[in-house]
């Protein structure tokens, strides 16, 4: 990757992170970069959002009620 492209990528990520903060999404920089990469690969953003939401919910459930025997997803399977 040439330095120009790298710089553009970093700046784009900065901008996205900034926006994410403004919107108060609660995502950290690394997660965001992973998400952007997935979007770029053509995944449905709605689905990605759903993943973020679901995993967060499950983690909150984990932290509040240990041990995490019955998570929402597992109950569905």
């Amino acid at each position, binding site marked *: 990757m040439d330095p120009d492209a790298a710089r553009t990528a970093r700046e784009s990520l900065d901008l996205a992170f900034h*926006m994410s903060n403004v919107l108060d999404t609660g995502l950290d920089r690394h997660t965001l970069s992973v998400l952007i990469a997935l979007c770029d690969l053509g995944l449905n953003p709605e689905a990605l959002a759903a993943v973020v939401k*679901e995993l967060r919910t499950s983690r909150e459930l984990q932290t509040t009620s240990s041990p995490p025997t019955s998570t929402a997803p597992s109950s569905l399977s």
Partner: protein
Amino acid sequence: MEEEDQQKVSDLIKELVLRLLSQNPTSDSHPIDPNSPDFRNSLRYAFRILSSRMTPSVAPDAAAIGESIKRRLATQGKSSEALTLADLCTKFASKTGPGSVNNKWAVLYLLKIIAEDRKAARNQLDSSALLPNLAFNDADSGHDSRVSRSLGSKEKGWRNGVLLVSKDPENRREIAFREFMNLVKEENEVCEEVLVRDVLYACQGIDGKYVKFDKNADGYVIPDLVKVPRATRIIVRKLCELGWLFRKVKGYISECMDRFPAEDVGTVGQAFCAALQDELSEYYKLLAVLEAQSMNPIPLVSEKVSSENYLSLRRLSVWFAEPMVKMRLMAVLVDKCRVLRGGAMAGAIHLHAQHGDPLVHEFMKRLLRRVCSPLFEMVRSWVLEGELEDIFAEFFVVGQPVKAESLWRDGYRLHAGMLPSFISQSLAQRILRTGKSINFLRVCCEDHGWADAATEAAAAAGTTTRRGSLGYGETEALESLIDGAAKRIDKHLLDVMYKRYKFKEHCLAIKRYLLLGQGDFVQYLMDIVGPELSEPANTISTFKLAGLLETAIRSSNAQYDDPDILDRLRVKMMPHGTGDRGWDVFSLEYDARVPLDTVFTESVMARYLKIFNFLWKLRRVEHALIGAWKTMKPNCITSHSFTKLQRAVKLQLLSSLRRCQVLWDDMNHFVTNLQYYIMFEVLEVSWSNFSSEMEVAKDLDDLLAAHEKYLHSIIEKSLLGERSQTLCKSLFVLFDLILRFRSHADRLYEGIYELQARTMESSLPSRDKRKSQRQLSDKVSEPGSWIGDGRKALTQRAGELFRNMGQDLDAIAKEYSSLLEGFLSQLPVQQHVDLKFLLFRLDFTEFYSRSSPSL
């Protein structure tokens, strides 16, 4: 490559799950074992979600999404954040080239949803755990999303577990909506888009696929066979009213266009068609726009509801509201104007323009401006050029081919049916007169100065003489133009009449010769034509009389008059019967040539003739009385010559002389006063009024009216009118009596002179006696003449003569007094005030009113 991408995706997902699970808000973060069941569960779950059939429900448009986020923030009251975000969005969008994010809209959308989810989760933290995760087991592989396609080959086992993640109320609404849509689809054989297109076609007069013109229903309807709900049927029918109206208007236009060369549609009709055509082309434009729009979907952001096409039937009904009003108006006008033409058509349209709605008013005004332009063009060319460019008989001025002398009176008239109501009657009269004046000047006066006057008028009115400078609604401009033109042209016309054609001089000439105002001329004429006129009418030569007239002119002061005027004075013999004398048929005539014959028409001249005859008779009577007086003058009869007569005869002579004198005096009193009245109270007063009215006359009509008044007043006052016919008759009987008196008096004096001569003769020498005898025998050719008889016979004859004469005179006196009494008693009954003065003059000493109690 594909394989590599898939590998990359799964790696990234793994990483994401790891990040999400390890990311802990609390401090006791512990590394998560990638092999723990917890992690594996989560990962599997994540894959399943991502392989779901969820597809993005929005258009991939970064700007629109950015906008929607911004608006959301703004509505939440975070305007500064909204601004920051907008700024960031622009910057983000501007990052292009290698290394930048490709799916910008996806990133933005992702951020948006995450933010919304987080917010929702925070709002209802408690209930979030209880959210039901709905699963559709019958996930249809036909609805594969990109994700499922990309992952499908690997994750086959998870395909049944699909999670539909959405907020509950929205979800439910969507389901309800889908159900509704299905219901609608079931009920409707035809979907709305097709109907919209059909309606648009119908509004252009074309049958659509379903909406067709039905002759029985007289309108565009959906046939009964097509299954649509009642409501749709009704709205389609309502919308298609426009199509029906359109057909009507269009039909009228094409009908007119077809008819045009063969029949006379008229310029106004053509203008109307053209205006309608223009309105229709506006309408076509609207329809074209609507048609283009009907294909586009409604641009909606983040609506779950699948957006429909932009145009629905209801939207159409809104769009059609205004054209419908216009089209209805046009249809009404078309109906109204089908049988009308020209000015009548413009008038009918004008009646519709009186509308309170500004839209309608404006529309009608625009239409009228077009429709009336030919009319105003006609008015302009008529008023300024006198041209009647009206091949289709549409103008409210109608011309008729007439002779030059009646051009003014009958050449042009107003056609009331073609007069549009926005031109008032008085204005129309002015328009008519102005053009008529121009034509009169051109045809009768052969004058070309009017063109300058017209140009001046047009310049003064602010419009040039170019075409199309007037329009509907500019009534003031029109009025000022017409006023200006009328004023100038009328002035010019009167100038021409007065200066070039010497109207006033001719009027004066008529007064002097036809109304016997020139005393010396009349006296002389009477003297020289008198003997000629006593002959029977059929023996009189007109040429001789013309010669006598010439002589009379040359020997009176009339010879100094304008030769042009004298040239026009002629002798005219009226048609005569067998017993008529020259007196009855002789008259003078004045030849008023073009253009004066517009004023002195044949009927006017006939009235002048009537007055002339009356005055001529009066003059003749006066002349006769004067002639009688000449013979009666007392010094002609020297009473001493009768001394030789017997006393009785002498007394008889004196008494008859006296009686004759008295009667003459009586008659003379009457005739003189009547003459005075006619000359001074009637002719001069009327003339003076006429002169002053001539001064203030503004146009030829005024002049004609003034002249008419002049003539009328003369006729009325001199007892020649309809109402005073009996009076006039008795007056003529009186005149006849006076003339009879004159012949009697003449005979009396002849007798006296002869008697005188006889008595003188007796004292004269015989030679003279014989000579005078012969002379006398020439004069009196009666066989029983008393010439040559003896003195006794002479005395006897004289007695007889005086007795006869006395009886005749008595009879005449008696008849005269009874006639005069009748005449005087009739005088006060007359309407005219001036006749009272006549009575006053005649009866100044109250002689008549005392002698007869009836007065």
